[in-house]
């Protein structure tokens, strides 16, 4: 047989040239292009994404829309039922009272006033007992829910993923300390914590000056402390399993650094699970916000959230009259959002699974 080829030239013979010429143009498949294609192929995923994007967009530009102010009251003493858009599309009774607004929103509102003047939509979803427009309040309230979701997503993705990855990669003692911290935080009874913090922080100080830590701040602190915990667990489990996988060991025998292992192997293998888990975390956090607001522990008036609206609506139900439009609007908005997140997570799970290449 032939003598063995010289070093560095094993594969640089005719085979090399032929094969290279033949295949140099071919593209290595891109995981994310595949994922997009598979997501787009699923109707439920398309509609979920559309709903979520529309909601995000609406909550961002809600001060620009020709809606009534969510805070402007009309003392009718009786909630007004919805009026169909084709019966009363618009009216000219806009009242520019918004309570406290941040500068950006104030600027947006003034743009709205210049563009639409006194024009505003009719009470398409009715009004509450103080004459405030339900549709406007639902849209303004969506900001709270989405902000909470965004905050939880950020803490999960930064603290949760980093914590879990470090614990999974670290030696047993560090791992132990980190995961016991997670256990301790997870075992905190958060409702009591919120109540305690609120009553403690908002109690008047002996000097008489009110210690003003807003409920929102407390709320976000608690969400921030709790929402990343499950993510840290999930990521740690994945990293532990991957760390001893043969393909990681095989890279290690080649002198791969931990940085390479993380970039080349851990991220592509953990990211899909993180994304899917995120779509599970967000609904639970949105629900949690609504639940606390429903109990009166969430956002403070004049801010609104879906939980506050649902609580108002539930209070308005009496034996004499059921103002069904009050709880129905926020409940439907929240239900649709949670459903969209769930369907999207399901579709994402399937789309990210390379083994189900053609679904």
């Amino acid at each position, binding site marked *: *047989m*032939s*003598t*063995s*080829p010289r*070093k*560095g030239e*094993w*594969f*640089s013979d005719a*085979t*090399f040239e032929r*094969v*290279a010429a*033949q*295949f*140099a143009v*071919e593209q*290595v*498949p891109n*995981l994310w292009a595949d994922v997009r294609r598979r997501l787009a192929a699923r109707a439920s995923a398309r509609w979920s994404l559309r709903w979520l994007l529309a909601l995000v967009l609406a909550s961002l530009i809600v001060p620009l829309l020709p809606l009534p102010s969510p805070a402007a009251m009309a003392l009718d003493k009786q909630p007004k039922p919805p009026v169909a858009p084709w019966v009363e599309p618009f009216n000219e009774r806009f009242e520019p009272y918004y309570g406290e607004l941040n500068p950006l929103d104030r600027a947006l509102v003034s743009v709205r006033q210049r563009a639409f003047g006194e024009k505003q939509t009719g009470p398409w979803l009715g009004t509450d007992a103080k004459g405030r427009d339900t549709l406007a309040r639902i849209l303004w309230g969506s900001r709270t829910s989405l902000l909470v979701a965004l905050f939880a997503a950020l803490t999960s993705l930064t603290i949760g993923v980093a914590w879990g990855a470090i614990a999974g990669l670290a030696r047993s003692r560090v791992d132990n300390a980190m995961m016991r911290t997670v256990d301790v935080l997870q075992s905190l009874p958060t409702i009591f914590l919120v109540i305690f913090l609120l009553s403690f922080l908002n109690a008047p100080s002996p000097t008489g000056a009110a210690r003003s830590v807003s409920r929102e701040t407390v709320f976000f602190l608690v969400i921030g402390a709790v929402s990343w915990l499950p993510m840290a667990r999930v990521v740690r489990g994945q990293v532990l399993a991957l760390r001893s*996988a*043969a*393909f990681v*060991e*095989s*890279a*290690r*025998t*080649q*002198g*791969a650094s931990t940085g*390479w292992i993380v970039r*080349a*192997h851990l991220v*592509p*293998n953990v990211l*899909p699970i993180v994304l899917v888990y995120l779509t599970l975390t967000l609904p639970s956090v949105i629900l949690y916000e609504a639940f606390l607001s429903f109990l009166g522990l969430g956002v403070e008036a004049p801010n609104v959230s879906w939980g506050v609206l649902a609580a108002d609506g539930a209070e308005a139900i009496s034996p004499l009259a059921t103002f069904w439009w009050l709880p129905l609007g926020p409940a439907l908005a929240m239900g649709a959002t949670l459903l969209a997140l769930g369907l999207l997570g399901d579709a994402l799970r399937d789309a990210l699974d*390379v*083994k189900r*290449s053609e679904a």
Partner: protein
Amino acid sequence: MSALLAVEGLCVRFAAREGRMVHAVEGVSFSIPSGGALGLVGESGSGKSTTARAIAGLQAPSEGRVLLDGEPFGRQSARSARARVQLVFQDAQGSLDPRRPVGWSVEEPLALQGSGTAKTRRARAFAALDACGLDPKLSLRYPHELSGGQRQRVAIARALVCEPQLVILDEPTSALDVSVRAQIVNLLCDLRQRFGLAYLFVSHDLAVVRRVCEEVAVMYLGRIVERAPRSELFASPRHPYTQALLAAVPEIGRDLALAPLALDPASPLAPPSGCAFHPRCPRRSEVPAQRCSLELPILQTHGDAALSCHLAAGAVPRAHPAAPGSGASRG
């Protein structure tokens, strides 16, 4: 010495519960010449895979050293040195990243070496796949889309792409169908001839080892009990354990003459005293004075073979009557 790989007194011990130690590998020494092939055989738990992992640098040895061309080799070695030793795992599915096209996995060692541009790396990966009998088009597929044999070919291509001198094959054919196994074994023989590779071939499949390797070492409970050239070992095995292993290979047209080994191998947590094989050894009664259970036999070299057994020629004549106390005192 002109040995490519020299393993000297390699020990790997793991801490077990209650402060006990698992002696997975105890004092294993051997060498492989450049272009040679050594088969490492033994039952499950005999420490052959741990030996392979320790040589590849996946497991820090507790004692002993591994020399590659006379230079110490291990996890601290430079990447360029590590590229000269490649490892192929039994589980080809697990040794390829499920979320990467297999072409990427074949390129990875080159990328880690930082050799060439992306384009030349791709071309070399294609050529390596081609050398392993795979259509380079398959490099765009994911591991789960390939058959077991194709995956193992990809794993071999991945090992070859850096042009190593030594390939450690850890049960490379055990997870494959018989027909595919034959193809892979032929491929391994061809590649060795073509590229002048040296193999450390870890397997429990004696037929495959016989086909690939010129020299065979038999391990039992972390120690090498017999080492001999292929022809010698398969024709006239000398250690009772080797004899039992060979007798246990089923063959068409032959009744299993010897009964299979009676007991399971002892735990490396509590290895038997003396010769670790003595509780199962069918011939221990031929050695007088319970020497087997008291004294650890030493691996003694005879020419190009080595044996670790009290039955070894000259040590104790076979027909010698029992002489109490004669040989036991040394242990």
